[in-house]
């Protein structure tokens, strides 16, 4: 059975083709979705890719959130539809209130591109089930506003419910609370991740192939293999 995953292109999306490549490499079929349409084209999951939607001039993801495609995604996600937001996609998910908190300027105020070690904290989400608990992986991180911030109450909820899916290891790249690199919603179908798994799918172009597991995880769960 084919596994159709939509990849949304907003004006200013950059890593959309890379996300599509990762989906295909994981064995799925990448389906391009355009911001201006609300048609999800019968995909079984959606990836919101990295980039600078609408230039991200106001706040990252602030304008993308209002795109027609997001209406469909928000509605579907509230009914358990799988969504992975990477970098700018994570920012869009927070702005859309599908995920709590917000991503703010890196604490050193610079854009930062580096190979970042992560610890996978939760393997119960759709997008992380292929990892072993506590697994350490190395994948690229590249953003200017990746510092995860939220109030204490939200943080407590995220931690106590095990919704922190990945944490930065060995190096704090941006001042995120509790070194949070990625979180999920309550149900585990919506995941936001600041680093870029789609850039760690072949050793030729990335620091590892561990990123592929995010995509194969969803594939295996949804196709039931």
């Amino acid at each position, binding site marked *: 059975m084919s596994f159709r995953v939509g990849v949304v292109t907003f004006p*200013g999306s950059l890593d959309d*083709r890379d996300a599509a490549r990762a989906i295909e490499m994981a064995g799925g079929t990448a389906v391009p979705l355009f911001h201006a349409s609300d048609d999800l084209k019968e995909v079984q999951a959606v990836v919101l890719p990295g980039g*600078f939607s609408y230039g991200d001039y106001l706040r990252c993801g602030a304008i993308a959130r209002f795109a027609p495609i997001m209406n469909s995604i928000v509605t579907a996600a509230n009914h358990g539809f799988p969504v992975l937001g990477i970098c700018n996609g994570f920012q869009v998910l927070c702005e859309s209130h599908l995920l709590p908190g917000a991503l703010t300027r890196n604490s050193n105020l610079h*854009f930062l*591109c580096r190979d970042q070690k992560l610890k996978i904290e939760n393997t119960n989400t759709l997008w992380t089930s292929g990892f072993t608990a506590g697994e350490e992986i190395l994948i*690229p991180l590249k953003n200017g506003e990746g510092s995860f911030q939220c109030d204490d109450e939200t943080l407590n909820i995220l931690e106590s419910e095990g919704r922190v899916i990945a944490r930065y290891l060995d190096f704090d790249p941006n001042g995120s609370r509790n070194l949070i690199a990625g979180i999920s919603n309550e149900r585990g179908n919506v995941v936001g991740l600041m680093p870029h798994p789609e850039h760690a799918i072949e050793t*030729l172009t990335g620091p590892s192939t561990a990123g592929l597991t995010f995509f194969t995880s969803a594939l295996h769960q949804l196709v039931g293999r």
Partner: protein
Amino acid sequence: MSLDTVAIAEENPNSVQPFAELGLKEDEYARIKTILGRRPTSSELAMYSVMWSEHCSYKSSKVHLKQFGEKAVKSAALLVGIGENAGVVDIGQNYAVTFKIESHNHPSFIEPYQGAATGIGGIVRDILTMGARPIAVMDPLRFGLADAPDTRRLLPGIVAGIGGYGNCLGLPNIGGEIVFDESYAGNPLVNALCVGVMKHEDIKLATAHGAGNLVVLFGAKTGGDGIGGVSVLASETFNSAKPTKRPSVQVGDPFAEKVLIECCLEIFKADLVIGIQDLGGAGLSCATSELASAGSGGMDIQLEKVPLRDPTLSPEEILMSESQERMCAVVEPAKIKHFMAICKKWDVTATVIGEVTTGERLHITFNGQLIVDVPPRTVAHDGPVYNRPIMKPSYIDKLAESTFTVPLPTAADEVKAAVLKLIASPNIADKSWVTSQFDKYVQGNTVLAQPEDSGLVRIDEETHLGVAISTDANARWSYLNPYEGAKLALAESCRNIATSGAKPLAVTNCLNFGSPEDPEVMWQFAETVRGLADACLELGLPITGGNVSFYNQTGSVAILPTPVIGVLGVIQDVRERTPMGIPAADLDLYLIGKYNGNLSGSEWAYLHGEIGNSAPVANLEMEKRLVDFLLSGQSIFESAHDVSNGGLAATLVESVLKNKIGARIELNDVANALFSETPGRVLVAIAQNKTNDIAKLAVKYQIPIYKIGTTGGTNLEINQAVISIEELSKAHTETFPRLFG
């Protein structure tokens, strides 16, 4: 504000015009009058003045640059040569690649962030204009001393600007240079390179053919950017009340450019343009006159149709505006609807502003009044040409006769201290404080990027075809001997390409110099061009384009002559590339190529306040063999890293630090061996059972090779000197964060 029309110019032939304020010489102004048979209108004057500026007309450099065409070998790979927005080369499999470097030195000094950002924006549009999808950028940079306060203002701003714009466009930054020297104080160099790829049939040219075809301006609206000089004209001649001072600073909108890129690529794919030109320096003046000049007919433009961001702009200013993120295309009427639909999809403003005519003249009207009536060629191509006086500077012979000494370490602890000192110096230190602000991963095809010898990008995911690019300049050698300096820069760039496993194919350049009106600077320039042209001939490489930046000086003191050379290489299978870092223990380390111990122009000498007395003499015949040696040996090299700035010491340390695998080295004449920057050398690591293979290659290509050590352990050991990887790493990485926070 009254409008100066052609009719008025004919009626009032003797009106006083501020040509000098616009940078035109008296005889240049006279020449315009001769061409037109009357005085120019203020709009025409504005057009001629910018198009005949040094920046646009190459009036001081033209006579020299001719050599690039005259001497060049006829290369079958060259699909589009010098003269277009960027040259195009054939890399096989029906792919064509275009690449070019441009300078944005002066704007970056005034406003570091925006100056550098718009530098990236401009070169990317040049590449896009050829019909190519931009796939990567690079940024060779030069600054005054690293700890000077002005460098602390400039460097972070320039770096943030390059990242801010390039990252937002989704272009991986795959390399560049950062060099500090006091000669660049008050005059930093910000050069930007872009490379793009297309299929052969997609190549586009800047030309306007076919009477009745439409001229479309699309992209950002036109504002008052970059027209400081022309406001003088609008105010002093035609209006007693001066308009508000126009900003000469151009502000970039990378999002607008990103959308423009996608829009253009979709337009190209649907084959909707006859010709296309980006708007860069000199804005619409340049785009219209160049399109018309390269075409078969004339052109009529209705200037009032240009969408404005600032409604108070005068026609002169509209013609001159350097607002970013704009393009100009020539489109057949039958295709205009489709063209406009694609623009609409991407939310890009597009306006028909005129059409191609059967005549021979460029006519520009403003609300029905004729304000420009010129033969386009006279604006775009027939600018003045100067054969400026040249004079060999006296410092050259004085230095050549001088002897110089620098302290050299001998005992083990001295060697250790010297290596640590060298690798902590700003020119050699780790640059990741800078390069980590650039996205090198986007597009998912980056195989090698900084700090590798060259940037290497995959072009085709199925066939694994790829291209490599390196940019290099050694300004100290160019200062000592500009002819050899240019040759050496080209040789180094080729070597960097081959070290990574790619075959050098074509050359671009950005020649950064002081004032051409200074005969000594002009001599440096002439010698540089001669050297580069000779070197290209000898290496059999075509020059596909480039850029000249003059007037890089503070007061009467010129920068070091800085020819930045970019070489493009091709690699058939990117999986075969050779990385710089030592990948494993128990490999043999070989130094390929012979050193001569000369420390002139070296970083070690510079650290002791010395420049030396003579540049090395480039041995291009040997460099050619070295390239062949490296390409033939690709399959046996586990890693390869060339020896350049900082000598073998820097090469060793960088090779060790990349993967944190140590090495044990034995050297005779240790200090010279470590710190001399003798060109033509590469450090390679091979498996110990490959000794025979490398020896055979050495014989075949007559390249001397020296086994200097083995890999492994947690130290770099050089004879008796033992330096732990930790100590190396600390020395190498702490400098930039300490300087720039």
